[in-house]
């Protein structure tokens, strides 16, 4: 069914209808209205196009994109689709190039995405070729509007979207600057293919309630207990969020008292160096998870820093692309700390492996759910920032933004 034929439950943001994760028509509409609409999508780190004449492929939803840094150092992004017959222009993940040549018929583009050459435009021996009135400058891949913020490259096809900093809102912008404190050094990356709809993963990220319950490792080592000082920030429009907690533990016993599965207080590490860390930001915040609508995540877990790109690959498949980084001025010891802590994240992450699977648990759980609805009432029905993370406010915030973009 198309979005027009659907109607949202009466209880506002505290009830989410399950068809939202399993309607094939909806998927295509989300691509147009959200990912190719008035939203900013994180494309890559500036450090991923480190020098003039370098490029990297990325995505705007499931649309392929090329990000380039031209000879003058300016960053551009355009659809990875030749203006001639639609072939992918870049067939590699990343590389160096002075120009981009489509392999199919050798139409050539500069790194700003301008068509600079049409093979045999004038034919051969005066025969064939393009019409005399052909205007190459009218043929080019769709240009994205690009803005960089604190080392992050964002792109959009939208025409009605404000500047990135305004789109983020002041608190989110500040917390991004906090982490992106200096020139970045790439540490590496990998992707996870998640067996669920993209929205299930984004909800998981924004769901500060699950963190200490699904991830037992997390809780047991007091990396993040809901009883630790911290808070939840939701942007005005609902789409962006921060969840953070202080490292210092208030030594609560709520979990043990509540007899929760996740509280094995007996549990200790033989090799505690795994968790060794330094307060590099000087504010005692040990964990900060930040997301920007629709699909960007910036993560600080102790000294383990990473960006995550959420790329829909169909109704029930989602690519989660991780890029881990440190800073140019890290010494060997600092890099080793980050690398050791990266045992906590990714597909084998001691505190993250469950998230990928959780999207699948829900996608399979709702297979027969049809018109049923999920319950999102933790912390009430609002979407405002609060001190407590025992709340689904950021999840409700996501749906607030989603409904606005989808006009439902």
């Amino acid at each position, binding site marked *: 069914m198309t979005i027009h034929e659907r109607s949202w439950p009466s209880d506002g943001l505290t009830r989410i209808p399950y068809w939202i994760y399993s309607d094939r028509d909806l998927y295509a509409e989300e691509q147009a209205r959200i990912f190719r609409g008035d939203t900013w999508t994180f494309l890559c780190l500036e450090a991923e196009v480190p020098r003039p004449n370098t490029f990297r492929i990325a995505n705007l939803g499931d649309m392929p994109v090329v990000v380039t840094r031209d000879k003058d150092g300016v960053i551009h992004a355009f659809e990875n689709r030749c203006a001639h017959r639609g072939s992918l222009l870049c067939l590699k993940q990343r590389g160096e190039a002075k120009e981009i040549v489509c392999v199919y018929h050798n139409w050539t583009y500069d790194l700003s995405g301008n068509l600079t050459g049409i093979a045999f435009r004038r034919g051969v021996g005066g025969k064939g070729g393009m019409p005399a009135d052909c205007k190459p400058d009218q043929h080019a891949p769709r240009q994205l509007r690009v803005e960089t913020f604190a080392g992050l490259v964002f792109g959009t096809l939208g025409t009605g979207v404000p500047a990135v900093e305004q789109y983020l809102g002041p608190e989110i912008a500040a917390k991004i600057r906090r982490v992106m404190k200096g020139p970045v050094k790439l*540490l590496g990356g990998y992707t996870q293919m998640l067996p669920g709809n993209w929205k299930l993963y984004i909800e998981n990220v924004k769901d500060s309630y699950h963190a200490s319950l699904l991830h037992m490792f997390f809780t047991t080592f007091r990396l993040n207990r809901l009883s630790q000082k911290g808070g939840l920030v939701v942007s005005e429009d609902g789409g962006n969020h921060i969840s953070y907690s202080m490292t210092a533990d208030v030594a609560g016993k709520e979990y043990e008292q509540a007899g929760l599965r996740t509280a*094995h207080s007996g549990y200790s590490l033989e090799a505690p160096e795994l968790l060794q860390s330094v307060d590099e930001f000087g504010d005692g915040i040990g964990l900060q998870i930040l997301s920007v609508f629709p699909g960007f995540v910036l993560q600080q877990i102790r000294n383990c820093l990473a960006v995550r790109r959420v790329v829909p690959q169909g109704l029930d498949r989602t*690519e989660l692309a991780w890029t881990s980084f440190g800073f140019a001025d890290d010494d060997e010891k600092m890099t080793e700390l980050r690398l050791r802590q990266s045992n906590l994240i990714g*597909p084998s992450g001691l505190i993250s492996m469950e998230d990928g699977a959780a999207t699948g648990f829900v996608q399979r759980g709702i297979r027969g759910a049809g018109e049923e609805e999920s319950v999102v009432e933790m912390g009430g029905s609002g979407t405002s920032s609060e001190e407590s993370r025992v709340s689904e406010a950021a999840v409700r915030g996501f749906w607030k933004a989603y409904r606005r973009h989808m006009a439902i």
Partner: protein
Amino acid sequence: MNLERQLAVQDLNARYVDAIDEGRFEQWPDFFADDGHYRITTAENVEQGLPLSIIYATSRAMLRDRVRALREANVYEAQRYRHVLAPPRIEPAGEGSVRAQTSFMVARIMHTGETALFATGRYVDRVVLAGDAARFADKTVILDSRQIDTLLAIPL
């Protein structure tokens, strides 16, 4: 090619993957030297000279912690692996140790019955041969693909 060493490494590999495929995770750390290193990374990271790992352990104790987490902390559906390994290619690495490189394919089988080719790649190992006990001093699992389906809970 020293046949005896060849077979010693091949036997170590066989016992190693059997322990994993049969779910005897507690035995897994014992295939490593006390200060043995273990990491899983991707060919892409290696080719770019980037140090990030998917799993990174610098001692047998860290491997034991990983097993403990798998048993007591982490949540994942019942699943098993089936490894098939090529014969190792070995070369001496001085004083009673050899470098070994071994291609592998791993299928993952879920409790639901779903079977998939989960991972391919190569082991790049340093093996210490102390008497009749061969152990990994250093084992690097280099995945051919940058992409993992859902999660990688059980070690490779």
